[in-house]
């Protein structure tokens, strides 16, 4: 008989609990979840990278919709539970759904603390708890205006860094005299403040907020001393409170949070609570490690094992702001019975402090260099007597036992039960054991099987070192993926060496870079050919035999060995003569299928290879050239009708599209390049999912890039707004050339952009006029050699052999 398990809340703690429960007792419960947020379970620790743009929402999802379906879990999204009836054993949501339970788990998390000052409910005042908050902040950040973050703790600083990287002018107000005073001592807090300020964020400490001022909408923050700081956005990140209201209303014992025993049971034996809303032994928790521990304990009890008990342990704190390393653990207050060891290196910006009591480590603050955090954590946890190594303790593990400064040796020396991943409580032995027993070879595998480095990611380096130790030479975290089996070099190295050594032919590259095969393979040869075409446009002779068949015969091979042919239709515009010519070709060569493509052109499919030159000859007479529908190069420029015809059009989008296509046709790129120009933000040409797109607006041309609508779907990034068509063309050309010079073969522009960073691309293309001009000029130069119509060349006899059989044999001669 399955029991009914109802969970209120769908955050990380209940998500983890379900994972454990499904493993231990997969069929015991029929599970129903009510989530007040209208979405699945995602990694809240990673909201800061989403805010700063380093990650997207889809990258931080823990359980996608499929997971709930697979496990037969009913998830009510956007349902807030408004009542628990403990007598009837039911819960009821704000949408009127009532669900009976045998076991109820409350995981309502926490609510942000909103400081009680006038104006705190005004539009533009946000907290920082969930994805909705992040989305609101991102919307506000588009204005590039001023933001004030109230609270200089972990969350506040992450929010400030994120908003600043989105282009806002940010001020952090902190009520205490140093930042993160609960985790850092004043010295480290000072260094942190310096680092935060160096990024352009203003910090005001001892700042007592008196009121939020504005007229229905935030205009500023007033401090107790009367100072007013202008702001269009105020983020409150001053702390959280356990969200225990629903339990309190139901008569369950609450204090600061919902009071639970060490097995996660509340005062009602059929009701459990876990996560930030739960209070165990008088403590409430906000970091993920103890919450995951609660999840483990709760799952174990639900699965019928009564023995599991939650035990308090200190959790290290790490700040997730790129470029700032800090680590804090345990108790570091001064005291008569305590000693401290301090190391300062002002030039390197390093501060380390160890707090000792009775020759045992009880607290650690590391700033600037945090690699030894795990080792100190282990010493503290095991209460190791450190008197033997006291003199060198602060220098870290590598200095103990005379071993050299080798981080690998340090990891090797860690005990099997040393904790590696603080978020998920994974120790070294579990990682190395799983690598061996499951034959894991990649970081993603290790994350999938052990959860180590799968939450905040700050232990990734350690996990990789463990992989190196366990797998030996077969794993090298710093090794780049080689291009193919013919070489150990990755694409980037090969590209760099081609330029640096002036390598100008494929045999030269293979010789100088010590290729392991005599003439490469079907992976590296086309890549090398592209790199050489791109880098030496005037000197390199295209190696025809290193091109994929489509680029060799300038048509697209089909599954039956026939080809399809797509002539260029500039900007998607055609006329009666062209259509008549196509109709005649279709009749003459009995072409079985004619189809309109997604790129606004006409595709003729099922043409015999032998007929290709004759087809091209007829098309050429009507003025058609190759549409390069087969090329890792410029494909189409899709357009809408724009201001000439459309009542909403703001610019001549068709004209600009044609201009771009005429300028860029024939160019080879790392992967195919599809473009579009829309005449207004209604975007009928769908420019916002293209490799490069333009949205015309009244004030000019918004240049977009790095969209995708294939295996991956991704909206474009906005490169910037320019005023004239000429500028638009220059920016697009420069962007394309930068991609041509840096992209790895077959790497679409959105993947390249993700690797290089949108900010860097903006810097080189928009902000640096010299760079932009140089890119533009190199593209123009290379086009001199690229804009040759391959069809007319072949009509004139080039590569004749390609289209004819060498011989026909075995046919009965009598037939002739």
């Amino acid at each position, binding site marked *: 008989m399955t029991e009914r398990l109802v969970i209120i809340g769908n955050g990380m703690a209940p998500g983890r609990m379900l994972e454990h429960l499904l493993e231990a007792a997969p069929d015991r419960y029929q599970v129903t979840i009510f989530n007040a947020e209208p979405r699945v379970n995602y990694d809240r620790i990673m909201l800061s990278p989403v805010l700063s743009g380093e990650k997207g929402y889809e990258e931080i999802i823990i359980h996608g919709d499929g997971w709930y379906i697979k496990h037969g879990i009913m998830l009510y999204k956007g349902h807030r539970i408004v009542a628990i009836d403990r007598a009837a054993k039911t819960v009821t949501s704000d949408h009127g759904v009532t669900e009976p339970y045998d076991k109820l788990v409350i995981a309502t998390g926490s609510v942000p603390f909103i400081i009680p000052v006038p104006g705190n409910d005004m539009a533009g005042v946000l907290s920082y708890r969930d994805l909705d908050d992040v989305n609101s902040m991102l919307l506000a950040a588009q204005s590039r205006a001023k933001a004030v973050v109230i609270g200089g703790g972990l969350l506040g600083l992450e929010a400030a860094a994120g908003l600043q990287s989105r282009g806002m002018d940010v001020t952090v107000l902190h009520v205490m005299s140093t930042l993160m005073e609960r985790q850092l001592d004043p010295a480290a807090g000072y260094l942190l403040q310096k680092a935060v300020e160096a990024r352009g964020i203003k910090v005001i400490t001892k700042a007592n907020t008196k009121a939020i001022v504005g007229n229905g909408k935030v205009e500023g923050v007033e401090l107790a001393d009367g100072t007013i700081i202008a702001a269009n956005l105020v983020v409150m990140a001053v702390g959280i409170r356990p969200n225990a209201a629903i339990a309190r209303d139901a008569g369950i014992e609450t204090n600061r949070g919902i009071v639970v025993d060490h097995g996660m049971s509340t005062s009602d034996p059929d009701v459990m609570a876990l996560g930030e809303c739960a209070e165990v032994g008088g403590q409430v928790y906000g970091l993920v490690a103890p919450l995951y521990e609660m999840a483990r304990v709760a799952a174990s009890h639900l699965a019928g094992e009564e023995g599991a008990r939650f035990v308090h342990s200190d959790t290290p704190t790490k700040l997730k702001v790129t470029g700032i390393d800090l680590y804090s653990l345990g108790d570091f207050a001064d005291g008569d019975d305590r000693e401290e060891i301090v190391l300062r290196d002002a030039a390197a910006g390093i501060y380390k402090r160890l707090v000792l009591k009775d020759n045992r480590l009880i607290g650690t603050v590391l700033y600037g260099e945090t690699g030894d955090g795990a080792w100190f954590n282990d010493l503290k946890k095991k209460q190791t007597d450190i008197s033997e190594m006291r003199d060198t303790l602060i220098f870290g593990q590598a200095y103990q036992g005379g071993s050299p400064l080798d981080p690998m040796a340090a990891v090797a020396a860690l005990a099997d039960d040393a904790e590696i991943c603080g978020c998920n409580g994974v120790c070294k032995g579990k990682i190395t054991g799983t690598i061996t027993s499951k034959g894991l070879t990649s970081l993603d595998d290790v994350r999938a099987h052990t959860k180590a480095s799968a939450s905040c990611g700050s232990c990734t380096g350690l996990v990789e070192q463990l992989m190196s130790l366990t797998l030996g030479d077969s794993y090298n975290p710093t090794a780049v993926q080689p291009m193919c089996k013919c070489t150990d070099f990755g694409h980037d190295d090969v590209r760099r060496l081609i330029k640096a050594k002036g390598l100008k032919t494929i045999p030269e590259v293979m010789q100088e870079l010590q290729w392991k095969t005599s*003439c490469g*393979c079907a992976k590296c*040869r086309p890549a090398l050919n592209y790199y050489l075409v791109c880098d030496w446009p005037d000197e390199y002779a295209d190696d025809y035999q290193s091109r994929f068949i489509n680029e060799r015969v300038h048509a697209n091979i089909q599954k039956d060995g026939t080809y399809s042919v797509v002539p260029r239709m500039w900007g998607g515009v055609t006329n009666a003569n062209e259509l008549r010519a196509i109709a005649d070709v279709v009749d003459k060569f009995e072409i079985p299928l004619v189809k309109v493509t997604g790129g606004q052109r006409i595709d003729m499919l099922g043409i015999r290879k032998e007929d290709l030159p004759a087809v091209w000859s007829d098309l050429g007479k009507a003025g058609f050239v190759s549409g390069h529908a087969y090329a890792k190069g410029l494909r189409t420029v899709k357009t809408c009708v724009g201001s000439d015809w459309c009542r909403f059009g703001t610019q001549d989008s068709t004209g600009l599209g044609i201009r771009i296509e005429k300028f860029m046709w024939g160019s080879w790129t790392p992967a195919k390049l599809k473009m579009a120009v829309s005449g207004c933000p209604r975007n009928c040409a769908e420019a916002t999912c293209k490799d490069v797109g333009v949205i015309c607006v009244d004030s000019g041309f918004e240049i977009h890039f790095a969209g995708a609508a294939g295996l991956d779907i991704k909206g474009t990034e906005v490169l910037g707004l320019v005023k004239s068509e000429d500028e638009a063309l220059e920016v697009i050309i420069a962007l394309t050339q930068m991609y041509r010079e840096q992209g790895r073969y077959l790497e679409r522009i959105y993947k390249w952009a993700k690797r290089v960073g949108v900010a860097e691309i903006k810097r080189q293309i928009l902000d640096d006029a010299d760079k932009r001009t140089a890119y533009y000029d190199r593209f123009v130069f290379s086009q001199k050699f690229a804009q040759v119509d391959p069809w007319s060349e072949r009509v004139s006899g080039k590569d004749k052999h390609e289209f004819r059989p060498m011989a*026909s044999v075995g046919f009965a001669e009598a037939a002739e």
Partner: protein
Amino acid sequence: MSEMDWIAIGTLDDIPVRGARCVTTPQGKIGVFRTAEDQVFAIEDHCPHKGGPLSQGIVHGAAVTCPLHNWVFSLETGRAQGADEGSVRTIPLKVEEGRLFIALDVLASKAA
């Protein structure tokens, strides 16, 4: 066993280095491949996977990669390389003073 009938199909120069040409026969096409070292091989022009025309693939070493789904075949043995399993028929071929001949037992008997 009758002696092989050698049929002239052309010269070495007809085939591009690291390339291939087709020979049509009543039983389907044959791909004739020339490697970087001027070795010449003839195999059935039909990938056992999905029928791709192997003569259209990229030639590397003494192997060719099928243009449809990237299976790699040894030109010497006709066997698929790597994780894929399958093979294509190889056809006897000889080079005499730059002239190429293939032997088609089946065809010869039918044509006779």
